[in-house]
C-alpha cells in the first residue's frame, strides 16, 4: 500500500528566541504498510510519530527519502498529481471537537465530500443521502438521530465516529488514526477502537495507529507491525506481540515499564527499566540517541550509531548495541 525509505524532515524555528534552530523530526525512517494491514507508531510526544503520520497522509512534505504509494514513487509526480494517491489515505485527528465544523450539521458535513464523490463517479444525487446513511450506520450511529445535529449536540465518542464516517466518504484504502481516542471518555474508547478494528476486518482498510499507549496498539492490530520511535528514529520494529512479550531495546522497555500497574489484578514486571535522566537536553546527535538516558549505555553507545537490524539474532529489528530481553510488562496476578 505505502512504503517509505529514508524519510527525513527538519523543522526550522522561524521566530522567537530559538530562531534558526533546527529540529530534526525524522532522521531517515523506513516503513511499509500493506493493503489491509495494521501498523502502529509508538513513542513519546516530540518523537516524530505525528509528523510521520502527516507525511503519510500527504499533509506535510518531507525533505528527503522516497514515499511509494501502490507502486508509484511520489517524487516522480507533481504535487497536483499526487492528490489522487494521498486521497486514499485519510487522517483521523486526535481532537474530534476541533475536527468538525461547529456551524455545520452532520448532514452538511457528510454531504459536501459525498456530492464531490458523486460527481467524480457519475452517480445520481440520490446516492449522496443514501451513502451518508450507510456510512453512519457503518460507524455505529443512528442516521436519523445524528444527521440533523450539530457537533456540540453529540458526545465526544459520537463526534469521533462522525469524523471516521467523513473520512470514509472518499473510499480510502488506509486510515491514519493519530491518538484517536486520547480525548474520548474511558468507557467509550474501546468502542472507537473496536470500530477501527472492524473497518479493517470488514472493508479491508489498512490502519495506521499513532499512539503512546502500546496496549491500544495491540488491540487494533495484534498481527500488525509495531514501530517504536525515539527522536525521529525507529529504534525497534517488529510484530506487536513479539515486541510486547520480548522487547530488546531499553527505550521500548522504558515505555512498557511506565505503563501503570493495576495493583490487585497485576503485579509489576520483574525488571522494570527507568531512564536515568528525565530528559536528555544535550541534543547531541552522536552515537545512540538514547545513550544518555539509557541505564545500560556504554562508551561505545556514545560514539557509534547503532543501525536497525536483527543484531544478536532477535526476531524483531532493533537499533541497540546491547540488545537484551527483559521482562518489564506487568503480569496478571496468579499467572496467566
Amino acid at each position, binding site marked *: 500500500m505505502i512504503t517509505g525509505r529514508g524519510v527525513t524532515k527538519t523543522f526550522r524555528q522561524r521566530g522567537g528566541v530559538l530562531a534558526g534552530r533546527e529540529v530534526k523530526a525524522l532522521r531517515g525512517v523506513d516503513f511499509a504498510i500493506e493493503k489491509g494491514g495494521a501498523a502502529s507508531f509508538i513513542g513519546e510526544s516530540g518523537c516524530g510519530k505525528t509528523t510521520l503520520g502527516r507525511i503519510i497522509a500527504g499533509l506535510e512534505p518531507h525533505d528527503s527519502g522516497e514515499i511509494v504509494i501502490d507502486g508509484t514513487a511520489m517524487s516522480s509526480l507533481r504535487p497536483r498529481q499526487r492528490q489522487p494517491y494521498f486521497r486514499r489515505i485519510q487522517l483521523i485527528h486526535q481532537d474530534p471537537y476541533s475536527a468538525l465544523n461547529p456551524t455545520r450539521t452532520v448532514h452538511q458535513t457528510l454531504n459536501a465530500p459525498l456530492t464531490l464523490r458523486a460527481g467524480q463517479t457519475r452517480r445520481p444525487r440520490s446516492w449522496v443521502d443514501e451513502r451518508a446513511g450507510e456510512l453512519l450506520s457503518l460507524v455505529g450511529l443512528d442516521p436519523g438521530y445524528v444527521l440533523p445535529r450539530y457537533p456540540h449536540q453529540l458526545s465526544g*465518542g459520537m463526534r469521533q*465516529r462522525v469524523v471516521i464516517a467523513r473520512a470514509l466518504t472518499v473510499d480510502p484504502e488506509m486510515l491514519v488514526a493519530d491518538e484517536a481516542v486520547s480525548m474520548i471518555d*474511558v468507557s467509550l474508547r474501546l468502542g472507537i477502537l473496536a470500530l477501527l478494528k472492524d473497518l479493517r476486518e470488514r472493508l479491508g482498510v489498512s490502519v495506521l495507529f499513532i499512539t503512546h499507549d502500546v496496549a491500544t496498539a495491540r488491540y487494533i492490530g495484534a498481527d500488525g507491525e509495531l514501530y517504536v520511535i525515539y527522536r525521529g528514529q525507529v529504534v525497534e520494529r517488529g510484530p506487536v506481540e513479539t515486541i*510486547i512479550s520480548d522487547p530488546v531495546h531499553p527505550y521500548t522497555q522504558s515505555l512498557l515499564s511506565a505503563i501503570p500497574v493495576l495493583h490487585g*489484578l497485576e503485579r509489576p514486571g520483574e525488571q522494570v527499566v527507568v531512564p536515568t535522566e528525565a530528559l536528555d537536553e544535550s541534543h547531541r546527535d552522536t552515537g545512540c540517541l538514547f545513550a544518555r538516558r539509557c541505564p545500560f549505555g556504554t562508551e561505545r553507545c556514545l560514539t557509534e550509531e547503532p543501525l536497525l537490524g536483527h543484531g544478536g539474532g532477535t526476531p524483531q529489528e532493533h537499533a541497540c548495541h546491547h540488545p537484551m530481553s527483559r521482562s518489564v510488562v506487568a503480569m496478571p496476578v496468579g499467572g496467566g
Partner: protein
Amino acid sequence: MTSEKVAVTAESTVKGTAGRTAPGVRVSGLSVVYRTPAGELPAVSGIDLELVPGSITGVVGESGSGKSTLALSLLNAVQPPGRISAGSVEIDGLGDVVRLTGEALRKARGRHIGYVFQAAQNSLNPLKTIGKQLLDLGRSHDVADLRGLVREARDLLGRMGMDGARVLDSHQHELSGGMRQRVGIMFALVLNAHLVVLDEPTTALDMITQATILRIVREVHEERGLTTLVITHDLGVVAEVADRLAVMYGGRVVEQGPTAQVLGAPRHPYTRGLLQAIPRLVGDIGEATALPGRPPTLGTIPAEGCVFRERCVLRTDVCETEDPPVLSQGESLVACHAVAAKARRDGPATAARTWEPGDVWAIDEIPGAGGSDEERRDEGIRAAGGVPQVAGVRRGQGGQA
C-alpha cells in the same frame, strides 16, 4: 481555625511536619448543583467520602462524573452558577470548609490545602519567572520570611529531580510539561499544606514522564506526611498511586474501598465494565469489551434511581425508581441494587469471590434482571457496526451454587 491567627513564622514554612500532621477529611452528604435554564441540576449528589489521614485516595470518573466538582468542594471553590447545596466537608484543624468565607477561606487555601490544578502545565503566568510567581504567592499569604520560602521551593524542586535555582529563574515556556507539573506540585506544597488535591496530575504527559510524576507524588506524600486526593479519569493512575479508590459516576460514588480490593474484586457493574474496557498488554486481547451507551451529562443524570442503570447489564425495575442501597463489606462500599440482592440471597461471602477480566455475572443470577438491547442502547449508537453487542454476558466463575 485558631492556627490562622498565629503569625506565620519562618519556621512554619521551612521543611518538616513540625506541629502539623496529615489531616483527615470527612465529606458527608455533599451535594453541588449548577443553575441552568432547565433549573438547578445536580453535579454531585449526596457524597460520603472519608480521606484517611496519611493516605492517598484516588477518585476516578469520566467527564461529567462530578469528580472535579468534588475536588473543588474541598476548597469550597465551586464557582457560580454552581453552589454547594447540602452537606459538609470537615477537615481536621479547619472545621467545615463549606462554612468558611472570605479571608479565612482564602488563608485556608494554600496554607492548609494545596491544589494542583488540571493542566497545571498551563496554569502558570507566561510573563513572570517561576521565582516571581513564588514571591507573589508568599506575599499574598503574608509569609514573613520570603527567603525561607524560596529556600523551601528550591529544596522541593531539587527533591523532584530538578535544578531548583534554574527553574525559579525560568519562564514557563522554558520548562517541559513534566517540569511544569512538578512546579505545580511545588506551589501546592511550598506553604506547607498537608492536604493536597491533584486534579488530573498526568493528563497530557508522556508515559515515562507520567510514571516519574506518579513516583514523585508517592514519595513526597510519604516524606512530608500528607493526606492526598488524586482526581483522574485514568484507572491506571489511581491503581499505581492510591491506597484507596472511589469510583464516581453521574455525580455519585458508586464504589469505594482499598485499591487492591476494588480492582481485584470489583463489585459495581460500572467498575467491572470500566476495567473490562481497558485493553491490556497480556492475556486475550479479545476479552476487552466496550461499555454500551455513554456517560450522562449534567442534563441527563436521572433524578431518581440508579445513575448507571441506562448502561447496566444487571438492571432491574427497582433501579428505575429507588436509589441503590450502600452495601459495606470490610472496608469497601458499593451502591448497587443487584449486588445488594445477590448479597441477600447468597449471604455476603460470595460477593467477595475473586474476579477475573472477562468475568461478568450471568443475568440469570439476578432475579428480574434483563431488558432488551433495544432499551439499553444509547439514543444515537446502535448495536451494530463495530459496537460490541451488549449481551457479552458470560457465566461467572465456577464454584458457586
